[in-house]
């Protein structure tokens, strides 16, 4: 608790400090490569035959996903706190890679906790983190996925809190984390807003993003929350189908509960034990969701739907073939829903999809699922 209070104080000071903002902007521009393009997906739009589809290209950020927007911010906070070590959890490996990258940039020691199930399916990212000088610690407990990696990172943090900052990668955990991560990610929506005004002269009708913990979606949505004409859709991992119970769709069958210091919708059993989740995408495979998402869902401001593994896999291939963009399996869930949504809309309506990450990391998994061989 003391560390959380200290983090909040440092964050609020940094936020009020123009020098911090300037440094942040400088790294986002020159190191991360922002602003990322808002790209009109012409062939996808024509193929679906409905609304005009734009992709916010977070896959073009350095390291290949939106995660680095937050790690740059949190590592700058770490320096402000004069801590010498950062730790992180990772599911798909993108947040781990982003943390390892920025730690390397500033010469900080870095340890990333990752479930062994995720290490298996995102092996490429494990190698990347190690190349970047990070220690990757396998987590064998529980379901060996993101939730267990967070457990282990939190255990490390309470043990080494004097020297270590925990770079949490999503809008999860106790306050102030969901606020800090949201603020650092909201650059996505701020840019998209300016870009769509330039390109279309008006705000979009729909925003679509996948939701694991919820950082890329809140990053896109946040700036538009006060615009009632902009509808927002979060796409959860439907796994093998909601009816099978093997999914990570918290809003489909979760109940209010507390996990990792946050009250939100949680997949749990009748005794309040956290239920195992399933998704083809490691980054969406988590039993809870950011508390702000739950709040806006209950208020009816953000709608939530789900896409199954199979639908995501199909969308993964569709976008690759039509646009020459291989999306991360996580982002493919957003594309999968867009596939259903766009044809139901008028041709002058606008949908902005957050393409939160690129799919290189998933090529091996996808190859296996599609039954083709990866030649060595």
């Amino acid at each position: 608790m003391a560390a959380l209070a200290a983090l909040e104080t440092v964050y609020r000071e940094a936020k009020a400090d123009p020098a911090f903002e300037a440094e942040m902007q400088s790294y986002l521009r020159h190191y991360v490569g922002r602003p990322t393009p808002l790209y009109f997906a012409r062939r996808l739009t024509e193929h679906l035959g409905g609304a005009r589809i734009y992709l916010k290209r977070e896959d073009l950020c350095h390291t290949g996903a939106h995660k680095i927007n937050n790690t740059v911010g949190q590592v700058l906070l770490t320096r402000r706190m004069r801590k010498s070590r950062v730790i992180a959890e990772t599911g798909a490996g993108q947040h781990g890679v982003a943390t390892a990258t920025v730690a390397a940039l500033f010469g900080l020691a870095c340890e990333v906790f990752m479930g062994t199930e995720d290490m298996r399916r995102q092996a490429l990212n494990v190698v990347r983190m190690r190349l970047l000088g990070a220690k990757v610690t396998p987590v064998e407990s529980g379901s060996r996925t993101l939730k267990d990696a967070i457990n282990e990172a939190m255990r490390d943090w309470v043990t080494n809190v004097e020297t270590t900052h925990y770079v949490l990668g999503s809008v999860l955990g106790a306050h102030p984390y969901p606020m800090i991560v949201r603020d650092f990610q909201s650059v996505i929506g701020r840019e998209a807003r300016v870009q769509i005004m330039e390109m279309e002269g008006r705000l979009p009708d729909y925003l679509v993003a996948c939701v694991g913990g919820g950082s890329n979606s809140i990053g896109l949505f946040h700036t538009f929350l006060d615009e009632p004409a902009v509808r927002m859709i979060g796409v959860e991992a439907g796994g093998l189908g909601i009816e099978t119970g093997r999914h990570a769709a918290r809003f489909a069958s979760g109940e209010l509960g507390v996990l990792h210091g946050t009250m939100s919708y949680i997949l749990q059993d009748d005794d309040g034990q956290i239920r195992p989740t399933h998704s083809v995408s490691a980054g969406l495979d988590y039993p809870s969701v950011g508390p702000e998402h739950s709040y806006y869902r209950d208020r009816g401001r953000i709608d939530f739907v789900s896409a199954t593994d199979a639908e995501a896999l199909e969308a993964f291939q569709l976008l690759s073939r039509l646009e020459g963009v291989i999306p991360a399996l996580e982002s493919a869930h957003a594309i999968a829903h867009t596939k259903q949504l766009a044809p139901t809309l008028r041709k002058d309506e606008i949908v902005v999809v957050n393409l939160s990450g690129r799919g290189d990391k998933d090529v091996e998994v996808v190859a296996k699922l599609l039954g083709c061989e990866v030649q060595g």
Partner: protein
Amino acid sequence: MKGMNRIDTRFRQLKESGERALMPYLTAGDPDLATTRALILELERRGADLIELGVPFSDPLADGVTIQRASQRALSGGTTLARILEMIKGLRADCRLPLLLMSYVNPIFHFGYTRFAREAAAAGVDGVIVPDLPPEEAAELIEATAAHNLHTIFLIAPTSPQSRIRAIAAASKGFIYYVSLRGVTGARSSISGDLDTVLRMIRAETDLPIAVGFGISTPEQVRMVSRVADGVIVGSAIVSLLEQTTGQTDQLQRIGEIVASLKAATVNQSIFP
């Protein structure tokens, strides 16, 4: 439920006799509730003063590997909060010790705070410790439990500043749980040396007894902590022995002997200060 809470009674008796409380921890249902029941009775016979029963949780954030494994065994055996309460109810005729539940917040939240307070008190539980529920977020639980004379005990960490110590002390009843190290539960070879200073800081804010836990495993450590604290909590060391002696006929006796030696370390303290 009127009258004195067993926790208060026990600490008052200990104070009168100049003793410190030995507070063993067991994960309820590890590996089954019948074993837990037998252990509670054995521990009482061997001199334990209060017993802390862990409610197993799928994601025990504050626990090290020993108790993580114990929780997993208990869950695999089908242990639930409702069954733990049932076991305690059945045990009460034979056991006079104060019994505390240590549970992560979600199983209790899911059970319902009001229902939990009512059923736990009816079963004979005396207090509850929720390591992932800070007092700032605990108003509902405190209100529900206070109505049934069930004590809520909060944790003070080595990193807690004086202002938080004050808030935690104000929210606690029965005793204060001081976490003797930065980190998670589990046996350690040494314990922090500046315990005396911290406990003085806490005593400046409260008259409640202070129990110290996390990382304490040997009679020597218990003796050291007993010099300055009112109670000593030993968890992972006992859980670990339970794990090692699985299936052995003298399991109960061996755990009983360890607990007796730990209790002796608290008593000796008061005889030879």
